[in-house]
């Protein structure tokens, strides 16, 4: 049955495959930019949130689409390699959440700093590491970005501090990097990412306190993919409004499946931090298409959740983008 499915997909892919069509038409036929209405973000302790209109140029659109496509294919390939036991160890895949990584990167500058947890392959790519080095690192080869010594969870790049295995441990680190930025006075910001599971770690709240006290230019971003491994957010958190968990830190809740929404929110947050007002919190509502990791037994449970999620939200990060190109 699957061969029939794959043949059908293959057929329709070549029929309306966007890449083929784009190369066949002349660029003069396209408008150089389009403006969009994006979803308004819920805010906490802010008078106004990010704008609800944005402009997307053709180059940006194609670049975001290409980046998200590459990330998706890289993660699916990693899935395949893991099942073949070419990648060993633990492998936490990022597919489904591509809009977050691409949107954040579009909203910050290359010399800003970023730190995340173990679901790091996407960010490694957006922070400038070639796919070859990422796959080499996953397979433990010398050509890998960490010389093959770290594996999936430990990838680093310039201004990208990984890649961290212990849940929540990266957030105080991110606050520390923000302190260094403030100390240097270089108007850079640090983006410290964590998940909905990590949001209940004590050290996150310690970081909130220090960042707010010392007005550090730190953007705390909670990638809420609804599941901390196998436990849904309702069963793990007394308060699932993660953008409000910073309490005294202003927060924004963002549609993490829409790359433009993420971009505008990140730009807003980065401007907020750069103006010296202190830290800000963003919650990206997103979803992952794989289980927590490749060895996670909870997949059938997640599939059920995944289907109902799609019925409700009807989104797939770059389908939204593709449909406007």
């Amino acid at each position, binding site marked *: 049955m699957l061969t029939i499915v794959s043949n059908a997909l*293959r057929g329709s892919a070549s029929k309306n495959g966007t890449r083929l069509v784009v190369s066949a038409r002349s660029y003069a036929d396209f408008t150089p930019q389009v403006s969009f209405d994006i979803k308004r973000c819920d805010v906490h302790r802010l008078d106004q949130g990010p704008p609800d209109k944005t402009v997307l140029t053709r180059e940006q659109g194609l670049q975001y689409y290409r980046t998200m496509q590459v990330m998706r294919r890289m993660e699916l390939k990693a899935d395949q390699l893991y099942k073949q036991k070419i990648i060993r*160890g633990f492998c936490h895949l990022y597919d489904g959440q591509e809009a977050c990584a691409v949107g954040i990167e579009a909203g910050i500058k290359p010399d800003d700093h970023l730190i995340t947890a173990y679901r790091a392959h996407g960010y490694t790519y957006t922070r400038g590491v070639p796919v070859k080095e990422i796959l080499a690192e996953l397979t433990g080869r010398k050509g890998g970005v960490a010389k093959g010594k770290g594996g999936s969870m430990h990838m680093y790049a310039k201004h990208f501090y990984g890649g961290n295995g212990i849940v929540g441990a990266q957030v105080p680190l991110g606050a520390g990097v923000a302190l260094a930025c403030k100390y240097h006075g270089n108007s850079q910001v640090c983006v410290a990412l964590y998940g909905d599971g990590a949001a209940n770690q*004590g050290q996150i709240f310690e970081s909130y306190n220090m960042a707010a006290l010392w007005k550090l230019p730190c953007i705390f971003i909670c990638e809420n993919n609804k599941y901390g491994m196998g436990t849904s957010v309702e069963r793990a958190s007394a308060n699932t409004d993660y953008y409000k968990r910073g309490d005294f830190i202003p927060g924004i809740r963002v549609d993490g499946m829409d790359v433009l929404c993420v971009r505008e929110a990140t730009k807003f947050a980065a401007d907020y931090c750069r103006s010296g007002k202190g830290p800000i919190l963003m919650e990206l509502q997103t979803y992952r298409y794989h289980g927590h990791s490749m060895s996670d037994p909870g997949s059938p449970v997640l599939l059920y959740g995944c289907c109902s999620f799609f019925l409700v939200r009807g989104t797939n990060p770059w389908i939204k983008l593709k449909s406007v190109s």
Partner: protein
Amino acid sequence: FAMAAAAARFLLGSVHSRAAATAVALGTHGGPGGALLKGAAARRSGRAAQRRYAAHFTFQPDPVPTKYGPTQKMNLFQSVTSALDNTLASDPTAVIFGEDVAFGGVFRCTVGLRDKYGKDRVFNTPLCEQGIVGFGIGVAVAGATAIAEIQFADYIYPAFDQIVNEAAKYRYRSGNLFDCGNLTIRAPWGCVGHGSLYHSQSPEAFFAHCPGLKIVIPRSPVQAKGLLLSCIADKNPCIFFEPKILYRAAVEQVPTEPFHIPLSQAEVVLEGSDVTLVAWGTQVHVMREVATMAQEKLGVSCELIDLQTILPWDTDTVCKSVVKTGRLLISHEAPVTGGFAAEISARVQEECFLNLEAPIARVCGYDTPFPHIFEPFYIPDKWKCFDAVKRMINY
């Protein structure tokens, strides 16, 4: 699941690319692509140089125990489930909690317990190790039996303060008015072949430095059940490390009724006369092979001791053995500097100095983080241990 995922993607009209669609087709069993992959893997494994062995040891089951009643074939995680089942049945105050324990746990150690005993006795905690242990201490102090699970021993460090500063010192600092002896912490422990830095650690040495705790590490399903039940019954806070590589690999006939194996009593697994080998957990099975190799290749008779309880450890059994043999080899996966072998080494040379024929050998992990791709070089496998035995014999 993969089939359904493919269907879901198709229904959403998400036409990624030809390659992704093919990947989906190949991802499942069956189809010409799948066979191709399998063929390639088979060809690859044929070349010995590229083959990576599944494990660095072979599990040897112990003889079937007869004195504890009827037995059933169980692997390590099932024996843990059996022990927890016995506990929840006999002790109405017992509760089990930790990350993801409700559905059975990531290693299946708590499968079926929630359905059997209710969600107020087997429940999930949020992702907060410090909170889990702190909460467990409170439960124990108030008189209920608390069995906390830390998902991997590598994640136990946020709870280090609670364990060392609170749990271990509670009885002492309150003059025996309060204690948290009802607390048992369970954590999967040790190398697993592909765990790398944060899924392979053996942190027993960190806690061995803390009076007030008991630390126990079983080598097999029968030992696991007996020792875990002893830990739960013990009136001191206990940390029970379960070798995760043995969860499925170790299968034995395990008694279904509850039984206790005494703590702080090392077991002489093999009797010998020339060299004493001391290990715990998975490493005991490696040492078994070392003993066989030493007998065959060197004619050396090794006495193998499974320490079982790391703190407080059975100094008498080990010293008695060293007095008999004169040579001691201690082996563990944790890094050598400050590892528990150092403590055993120091104590044995204090007690048995004049009986020693050769310096005490420690074959342990190197002083590096537990590696990802270099694991086969890092772990103290049977060849390194055999080499150490040879050097001791020829000293």
